[in-house]
C-alpha cells in the first residue's frame, strides 16, 4: 500500500513537471501568439496557386521559420496571411509571435540563447544595439538587391550598421498627420492650413469661436504604459524638422547637436504654444496637464463628440476610430498633412519596421528575402490597414483614403523624409529620458530644465 502511494505521488510530480517543461518552449514555441489562419494547404487555398513567383526562394521540406515582433491581434493575423501562398509553394511554415513587451523580450531571448529566426524591429536604434552585441547576421545578397530596388537610400541606411546591410524595411507609417473632422471644418468654414502660421491662426480662430471649459481646438494623449510620452516626442521631432531643418535634425538624432541647444528649445516651445496652452488643449478631457494621463488611443476621440477639432497622430491612428466612423475627405474624420513653416517646404516624419535575422539558415534567408520584396509589400498593403514606402506599392491598392494619402506622401520625391528620431537615438534617450522628459514637460516643468536633463542623460 505504502509503495503504491509513493508511485502515485511520483507520477503526479512527473506529470506536473512535464507540463511546466512543455510550457517553456521559449522562442521555438511560437504557436501561441498570432497564429490564426496559417493552416496552409487546406481549405480555400488548397486549389490552384501560381507558384512561379516563389521559385526564386527554393523549396524546402517542412522547415519552420519563427518571427518575433511587436505586432499583435488583427495586424498579427494580417501579417500571417501574407505568407499563405509562400508557405504553400516553398514548404516553409512561418510562425509569428507578437508581444507588447517586444523591445525588452527580444533582448532577453537573444541573450538567453533562445532567439527567434527573424525579428521585426520598429527601432533602428534597437537593431544597431542587437548588431553591436553580435546577435544579428548580415542580410543576404537577395535581401540587399530587393532593398536597393524597392527602397530609397535613406530607408536602406536605417537598416545598415557600420557599412554592413542587416535589415530591409518592412512597413512604413507617416507621422506628420493632423486628424480633424471635415464635416465640422465645413460647417464652420475652416480651411485646411498650409503653413504653420495658418495652423496657429486657425487654432486661435477655433478657440475664439468655440472655446469653453469643455471644447478646445486640440486634443492629445501621451499615456502608453511603459512607453508613456512617445506621442509628445513625435510632436517635438516634427517641429525640429520644420523649424531647424533636416540637417539640424540629423545632427540632433546623432547627438552632434546638443539636446539643450537653442534650435531644439525653439521647436519645443513651438509645440508648447499648443500643448501647454490651456485655452488650446485638451478638448473633451481637461486642461493641458491632462494630456499626460490620457491614453494615446483615446487622445483623438473627442473629435467625434465635437469637443475637439484637431489631433496630431500618425497614419496608424486610423485603427482607433470606432467601427462605423466615416474616415474620408468629407466624412466624420480625416487627416491633413501637418504643414511646414512655408507652403513650399514638405518635411515628413516617418517611421517603419525592419526585419533582422538571427541566423543564416537557408529557410530564414528565404523568408527574409520574401519579406523585403515588392511582391510582399503589395500583398500586405492590399490586405489593408498599413502602408509601405516601397516603390513597388500602388497607392490605389491602399485600403482607405488616409492610407492612399500616406502612400502618396511617402512616394513624393520632393518630400524631405526623416525617420522618427527617438527610434534612432540611443535607447537611454530615445526610449528613456526623452519620453520621461516630455511627460515632465507636459506636467509643468520648464523647457530648458527638461532639455538640460535629457542632454545630461546622453550616453
Amino acid at each position, binding site marked *: 500500500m505504502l509503495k503504491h502511494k509513493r508511485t502515485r505521488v*511520483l507520477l503526479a510530480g*512527473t*506529470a506536473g*513537471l*512535464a*507540463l511546466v*517543461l*512543455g510550457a517553456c*518552449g521559449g522562442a521555438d*514555441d511560437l*504557436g501561441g501568439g498570432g497564429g490564426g489562419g496559417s493552416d496552409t494547404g487546406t481549405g480555400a487555398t488548397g486549389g490552384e496557386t501560381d507558384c512561379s513567383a516563389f521559385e526564386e526562394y527554393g523549396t524546402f521540406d*517542412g522547415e*519552420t521559420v519563427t518571427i518575433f515582433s511587436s505586432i499583435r491581434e488583427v495586424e498579427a493575423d494580417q501579417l500571417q496571411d501574407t505568407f499563405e501562398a509562400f508557405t504553400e509553394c516553398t514548404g516553409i511554415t512561418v510562425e509569428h509571435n507578437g508581444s507588447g513587451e517586444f*523591445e*525588452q523580450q527580444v*533582448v*532577453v531571448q537573444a541573450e538567453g540563447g533562445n532567439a527567434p529566426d527573424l525579428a521585426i524591429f520598429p527601432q533602428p536604434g534597437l537593431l544597431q*544595439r542587437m548588431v*553591436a*552585441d553580435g546577435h544579428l547576421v548580415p542580410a543576404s545578397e537577395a535581401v540587399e538587391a530587393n532593398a536597393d530596388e524597392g527602397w530609397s537610400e535613406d530607408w536602406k541606411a536605417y537598416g545598415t550598421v557600420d557599412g554592413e546591410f542587416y535589415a530591409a524595411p518592412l512597413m512604413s507609417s507617416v507621422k506628420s498627420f493632423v486628424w480633424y473632422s471635415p464635416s465640422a471644418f465645413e460647417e464652420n468654414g475652416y480651411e485646411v492650413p498650409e503653413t504653420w502660421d495658418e495652423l496657429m491662426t486657425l487654432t486661435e480662430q477655433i478657440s475664439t469661436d468655440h472655446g*469653453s*471649459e*469643455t471644447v478646445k481646438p486640440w486634443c492629445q494623449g501621451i*499615456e*502608453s*504604459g*511603459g*512607453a*508613456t*510620452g512617445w506621442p509628445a516626442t513625435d510632436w517635438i521631432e516634427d517641429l525640429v524638422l520644420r523649424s531647424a531643418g533636416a540637417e539640424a535634425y540629423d545632427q540632433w538624432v546623432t547627438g552632434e547637436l546638443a539636446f539643450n541647444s537653442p534650435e531644439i528649445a525653439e521647436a519645443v516651445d513651438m509645440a508648447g504654444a499648443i500643448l501647454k496652452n490651456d485655452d488650446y488643449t*485638451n478638448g*473633451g*478631457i*481637461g*486642461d493641458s*496637464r*491632462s494630456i*499626460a*494621463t490620457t491614453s494615446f488611443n483615446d487622445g483623438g476621440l473627442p473629435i467625434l463628440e465635437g469637443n475637439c477639432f484637431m489631433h496630431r497622430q500618425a497614419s496608424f491612428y486610423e485603427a482607433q476610430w470606432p467601427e462605423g466612423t466615416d474616415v474620408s475627405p468629407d466624412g466624420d474624420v480625416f487627416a491633413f498633412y501637418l504643414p511646414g513653416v512655408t507652403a513650399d517646404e514638405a518635411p515628413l516624419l516617418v517611421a517603419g519596421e525592419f526585419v533582422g535575422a538571427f541566423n543564416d539558415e537557408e529557410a530564414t534567408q528565404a523568408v527574409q528575402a520574401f519579406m523585403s520584396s515588392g511582391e510582399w509589400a503589395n500583398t500586405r498593403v492590399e490586405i489593408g490597414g498599413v502602408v509601405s514606402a516601397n516603390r513597388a506599392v500602388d497607392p490605389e491598392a491602399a485600403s482607405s483614403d488616409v492610407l492612399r494619402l500616406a502612400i502618396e506622401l511617402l512616394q513624393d520625391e520632393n518630400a524631405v523624409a526623416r525617420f522618427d528620431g527617438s527610434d534612432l537615438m*540611443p*535607447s*537611454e534617450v530615445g*526610449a*528613456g529620458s526623452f519620453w*520621461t522628459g516630455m*511627460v*515632465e514637460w507636459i*506636467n509643468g516643468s520648464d523647457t530648458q530644465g527638461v532639455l538640460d536633463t535629457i542632454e545630461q542623460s546622453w*550616453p
Partner: protein
Amino acid sequence: MDFFLYSKVGQMLLAVIALLAVVAVLLGGARLADRYAGRSRTFWVGAAFAGPAFLLLGVGLVYPAIRTTVMSFMDRRSEEFVGLANYQWVFSDPASLQAFINTFWWVILVPLVSTAVGLVYAILVDGSRFEKVAKSLLFMPMAISFVGAGIIWKFVYEYRGAAQEQIGLLNAVIVGLGFEPVRFLQDSPLNTFFLIVVMIWIQAGFAMVLLSAAIKAIPGDIVEAARLDGVNPWQMFSRITLPSVRPTLVVVLTTIIIATLKIFDIPRTMTGARFDTQVLANSMYDQSFTFGNNGIGSALAVMIFVLVIPVVVFNVRQMIRNREVRGA
C-alpha cells in the same frame, strides 16, 4: 524524432521520459550509496539526496547571483571593469534616488498596513455569522494579478477636467460631493501612496487568511483562563492573541516585505513609473532591458538583493527559534 521535437504532445512526452530517467538515475544512485558501510555511508547517502538540490541551487541561484554582482562592476556591455561607477550613479542620479525613496515608502507602508488591516479584520470577523463571506470578500483581490489590479485601479483613479463628465469612480464621488476632481496618479508625491493602496488591497487578504488561521489555533484553555481572570478586550488582544500569533505575524510581515521590495507591475501598468513613482525593480528592468545598460541594471539588482538579505536572515532565525520553542 520530429514528433518529439516539434509537436506539443511529443515535447510533453519527451519531458516525461527525461524526467523518469533522471528520477531513475537518482534513486539508483541513492541505492548504490546505501551499500557503503561505516562513516562514508552517511556522506554518500547525503550526497545522493542533497546533491541534485545543491546542483540546481548552484546553477539557478548562486551562479546568477555571482555573475550579476560581477556585472555590476562592469560597463554597459559587460566588457570592461569600471569599478564603483555604476553604484555611484545609483546613489547620485536624482531619478534613481527617487526610486529609493519611493521603494522605502512601499516597504514601510504595505507590510504594516496590510498586516494591521488583516489582523484587525481577522479578529473582528472571528466567530461571527458572516465569517466565511466576510473573509472571502477580503481575500478575493489575492486572486487578481498585479497587472489586472493595476488596470482596475487605474480606472478607479481616472481623472477628467472639472468641466467634464468624470469616468473614474473616485473622482465621480468627489465631484458629486461638490469638490474639485483630484489627479490621483499625476500629483507627486501623493501618487506613490495611491499606488501603495493598490498593493495593500491585494495583500491584506493574504495577511488576514494566515492570521485568522493562527487565531483559531490558539488553545481554547488559554483563552478561557484569561476570561476567568477577567481580561478586557484590549488585554485579551495584547496579552493573549498577539503573543500567540507572533510567529505567524513575523512570517506574514517578512513575506510581504520581500514581495514589496520587488514591486514592479503596479507602477509600470498604472503610471509607467512616470510622475516620480519610480521604484527599484522597475528601474532595474528599464536599465537592463530597455536601455541595454547591464552594469547599472545589475547594480540595482544587487541593491535589491542586499536590501532583502536582512529580512530573509530575520525570517530564518525566527523559524529556528520557533522550532526551539516547540522543542522539535
